[in-house]
Every structure is written in structure tokens, then in C-alpha cells.
């Protein structure tokens, strides 16, 4: 087998694993968008906020320490305890649910029946607010997140591939774990929306508000649910990326990776988000591997967008999206 082909296989594997994470983030967008018509610009900042909260809780940091100290002249910073990772994740999820409730109670509730563009702008506002709020609550410094996920090269894969091709693939354990968890979550979200009573209610609201009301569904409940799911997805994405590259502002940019995924897969399609995520994940790695050197490298920064744009020209509704036919 030629070297190029072997390298390409390794690159594809890595791409697939990145793709599963993209799919997860994209799914967060799709679920909110379908149910409420809101494109949640704040999704990325929510991931950052979740990761900061998780680190803060694990380290026993006092929230709003700077504010408290400034007002009361105290010098509190730490509670002096450490919370185990799993418990901290559960607590962080509670914080994300509280956030979902607050977003609905103080923002979205007042914007029922308004134009999508206004809802979108509200989420931009939310993004900036949350960014500042996160800094105020936990401090703006770069944090290290270690929830005990395995890291470093996977020896088994290295040895097996070395035995097969005479070249050992470099696959990071963290990527493997992350993609397995993400795949499980994608499956869980799909199962939730298809097979549970609340999932059915969610799909009902996504389809027709009036009809949903008439069968006894509380829209407020659904909004909180939807934002909680977004918070959950943000938390998972925050953990994965945070463990990989530290908890810092750039973490909020991962959400931007979901945009081309959505353009490719369609904004309303669950399978679209999954397949789109995988295509972008693999596509950008392969492209960089094959053509990156000729084009000066760093193509993964723009490849996904170009692919999505090309796609938009030929299939504006995305891979799985419904064809939009304007009624006249």
C-alpha cells in the first residue's frame, strides 16, 4: 500500500472523530432551531460558560469572588474543597438548566411571535452578556480542565497499525473517548426526540404551535427544555474541547464550526447534522493533508465554509432539509 493512502487513512480516522463532535454541537443548534425557530448564536459562549463553571466548581472557587471582595473588602477566593468530577458535572448541568430557565423567563418570553431576526439578535446579546457574566463569576484567566479523561497516544492502535502497514497511526485517546461519548449523546438525543413523551411534545411544538397548545403542551416548558438541551450539549462540548485545549475564549468559537455543518446538513434535519458533521470533519482533514501543502497550509480554517458555500449554491436546503417551495 502506498504511503499516501496509509496517511490518508489515519487522517480520515482523526477527521471522523472530530466530525462526531461537530455533529454534536450542530445537533444542539438543530434541536433549538426546529422547536423555536431560534438560531442560537450564544451556543459557543454557553460551551465556554459551562466549562468555566465546571472548573470553578471542581476547584471549589467562590463565584463572583472579585465582586464580593471589591464590595465587602474581603479576600475570599476558594472554599478550600475539591468536588469530584462527576458530581461537578451534575452540578454544572443544574447551573445550565437554571440558565435555560432564566433565558426563557427574562428574554425569550417577551419575544414570542417576533421575527426570527429579532430572536437571533437576542441570542447575540445573550452571547455577549454570558461572556462577561462568566468572567465576572469565575475570572477571565485561562483554566486547565481535567476531568480524568485519558490523554495521549493510543498504544493499541499504534501497534496494530504498525503491524499492518509498518506505520503506527497516531490517534489520541482523548479523541477516541470524546467521539464515543459524542456518538452516544447523539444517539441519546435522537432517541429522546423520537421515543419519549417529551420528545414527541418537542417535535409537536416544532411542527405547529397552535396544534401543540390544543393538545395540552405548555410552550414555556418546551422552551426551558430546549434551552436545557442546548446547555447540555454546550457542557459536553465544553468538557471535550476544554480538556483538549484549555478553557479560554477560543473555546466559544467551536460553535462557528457548526455553521458550515448546518449549511451542509440543513438547519432542521437531525440526520443532516450528523452526516454533515462527519463530512466536514473528514473533509477538512483530508483536504489539508492532500492540498494543504500546495495551498500554503492552515486550510482547515476556511475549508468548511467554502464547502458549505459551494453546497449552498446547488442545494440551498441542505442535504436532508426539506425543499423550500414558496406558496403563491
Amino acid at each position, binding site marked *: 500500500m502506498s504511503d499516501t493512502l496509509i496517511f490518508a487513512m489515519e487522517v480520515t480516522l482523526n477527521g471522523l472523530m472530530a466530525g462526531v463532535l461537530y455533529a454534536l454541537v450542530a445537533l444542539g443548534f438543530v434541536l433549538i432551531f426546529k422547536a423555536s425557530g431560534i438560531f442560537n448564536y450564544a451556543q459557543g459562549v454557553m460551551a465556554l460558560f459551562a466549562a468555566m463553571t465546571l472548573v470553578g466548581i471542581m476547584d471549589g472557587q467562590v463565584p463572583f469572588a472579585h465582586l464580593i471582595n471589591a464590595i465587602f473588602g474581603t479576600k475570599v477566593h476558594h472554599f478550600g474543597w475539591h468536588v469530584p468530577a462527576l458530581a461537578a458535572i451534575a452540578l454544572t448541568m443544574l447551573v445550565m438548566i437554571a440558565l435555560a430557565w432564566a433565558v426563557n423567563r427574562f428574554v425569550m418570553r417577551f419575544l414570542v411571535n417576533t421575527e426570527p431576526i429579532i430572536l437571533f439578535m437576542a441570542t447575540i446579546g445573550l452571547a455577549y452578556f454570558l461572556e462577561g457574566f462568566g468572567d465576572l463569576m469565575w475570572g477571565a484567566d485561562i483554566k486547565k480542565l481535567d476531568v480524568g479523561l485519558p490523554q495521549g497516544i493510543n498504544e493499541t492502535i499504534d501497534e496494530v497499525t504498525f503491524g499492518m502497514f509498518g506505520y503506527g497511526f497516531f490517534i489520541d485517546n482523548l479523541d477516541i473517548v470524546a467521539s464515543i461519548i459524542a456518538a452516544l449523546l447523539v444517539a441519546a438525543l435522537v432517541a429522546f426526540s423520537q*421515543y*419519549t*413523551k*417529551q420528545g*414527541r*411534545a418537542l*417535535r*409537536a411544538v*416544532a*411542527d*405547529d404551535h*397552535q*396544534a*401543540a*397548545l*390544543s*393538545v*395540552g*403542551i*405548555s*410552550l414555556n416548558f418546551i422552551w426551558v*427544555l430546549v434551552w436545557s438541551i442546548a446547555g447540555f450539549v454546550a457542557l459536553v462540548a465544553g468538557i471535550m474541547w476544554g480538556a483538549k485545549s484549555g478553557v479560554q475564549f477560543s473555546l466559544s468559537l467551536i460553535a462557528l464550526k457548526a455553521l458550515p455543518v448546518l449549511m451542509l446538513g440543513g438547519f432542521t434535519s437531525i440526520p443532516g447534522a450528523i452526516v454533515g458533521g462527519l463530512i466536514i470533519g473528514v473533509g477538512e482533514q483530508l483536504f489539508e493533508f492532500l492540498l494543504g501543502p500546495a495551498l500554503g497550509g492552515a486550510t482547515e480554517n476556511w475549508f468548511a465554509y467554502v464547502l458549505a458555500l459551494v453546497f449552498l449554491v446547488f442545494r440551498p436546503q441542505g442535504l436532508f432539509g426539506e425543499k423550500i417551495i414558496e406558496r403563491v
Partner: protein
Amino acid sequence: MLDAAEGYTTADGRKIGGVLMEMKNITLRFGGVVAIKDISFDIREGEIRAIIGPNGAGKSSMLNVISGFYNPQEGEVWFRGERRPPMKPYQVAQLGIARTFQNIALFEGMTVLDNVMTGRLTQMKTTLLDQAIWWGKAEREETENREKVEKIIDFLEIQSIRKTPVGRLPYGLKKRVELARALAAEPRLLLLDEPMAGMNVEEKEDMSRFILDVNDEFGTTIALIEHDMGVVMDLSDRVVVMDYGKKIGDGTPDEVRSNQDVIDAYLGVAHD
């Protein structure tokens, strides 16, 4: 005047019970438009009650008041002997009041079966946490409800389209699916806004039969809006007649038919 607690016996010998729902001096305004002007009437246990009137008379508005989609500016709504505070539509649904819409509101992307299953949401009690922890319990509930739904599907003779996405169905069948979804809630009061509008003669006959059967077999109280006078006269026990937001007649089909105000209102008025 009928007594509130005691019922009456219909011409075809059915026993009608006491008052289930009572509207007292309802007034509903949209800006300057008065859609309902000081209307009172009641709906009795086991009855088929019709609301008729020319276009724009305020019939749908009245149904929307009953189902909580509109809240009237004045008047009181009484249900099962208690005054009902202003409510959201989903709360009204949880009281056991189901409805269909004049312009059909179905979940177009879902199958017929899924649509009818949503009608059971008010009857399903497991919470999100239950579903996550006691998967078995949630599954049992799902199966039980599924059985009820299959019965309704059989009852309305839509077995053959169970798995079809609703968006692909013709108009007449959609109306029937919407009825199935409302029935799935096992409502105390069923509200139908023009259940036969836009149907051909055969479809109308089917729908009439279903409405009578629902009332007969499940004892469901039904309030319906209908334009076709023939249908109304055949189906209903008592009729409210509205015109320009006012009540101009109330009584048995025979009584309203011979009411001069009603005759005047309908003369020279185009209906569809």
C-alpha cells in the same frame, strides 16, 4: 328555561344531563371590533350543541374563548360548576377540553399515528426524570396509550394510513385525523370548528356518522360550528345562532328554524 342541574330528553330519546359548561355575558373585542357581544348560553352533559351564523358572526371566536385561545374582556366561563379563571390553552386542554380547528392544525411532518399519540399527552403522567430512570415504566405507559390510540384509529377507520405522514393526506382525511387526535384525549367536551367544511357529500356523511357515534358510544359532549344547515339540523340537540357578535337565537333545531330573527339574518346572506 331548563333547570341547571336537571337534564332533558331529546326527540330521539337520549338523556341529556346537567350543565357542563356555561358562558355568562361574554364580550370579546379586538381593538375596535366587537367579535362577541354579551352572549350567554350553556352546554349540557352528553349534548351535541351547535353554533351557527353567517360568516364573521363570531362563532370561531366563541370556540376560542371556550378553549382558552382568546380571553374575553368581560363575562364569566363556568365549567363543571366552577368559575374558570383566565387560562392558557394548554391548561384548558388539561381540564379535558379538546378541539379541532377551522383551518386544520395538524403536525404535518409526523405520521398519523404520532399525531394521534400527541392527543394522549394530557393523559401521560411520567416525568422526564421517570423516563430517564425507569425506562420500563415509561415504556409500559407508552404501550397502554398506544392501545387506546389504535382503538380510536380503528373507530375512525383510518387504519390504512396509520404510518403516512399527515402532510401527504387529502383534506378530508386530515379533518378526520384531527378529530382522532382530539378524541385521543378522551375529552369531557369536544369542540369542532366546521368539521365538514370543504368536504364532498360522501365525506360529510361519514363525518356526521362519526360525530354521532362518538357522542353515542363515549357519551362525549360536543360543541360544533357548522355552516351546512341540513347537517346542523340532523346532528344537534340544541343550536345557538349568532350574527354580528350577538346571539339571535337559542333552542332546538325546530325552534331556531322558525325564529324570525334567524330567518332574517340568513336571508340574502351569502354562505359557503
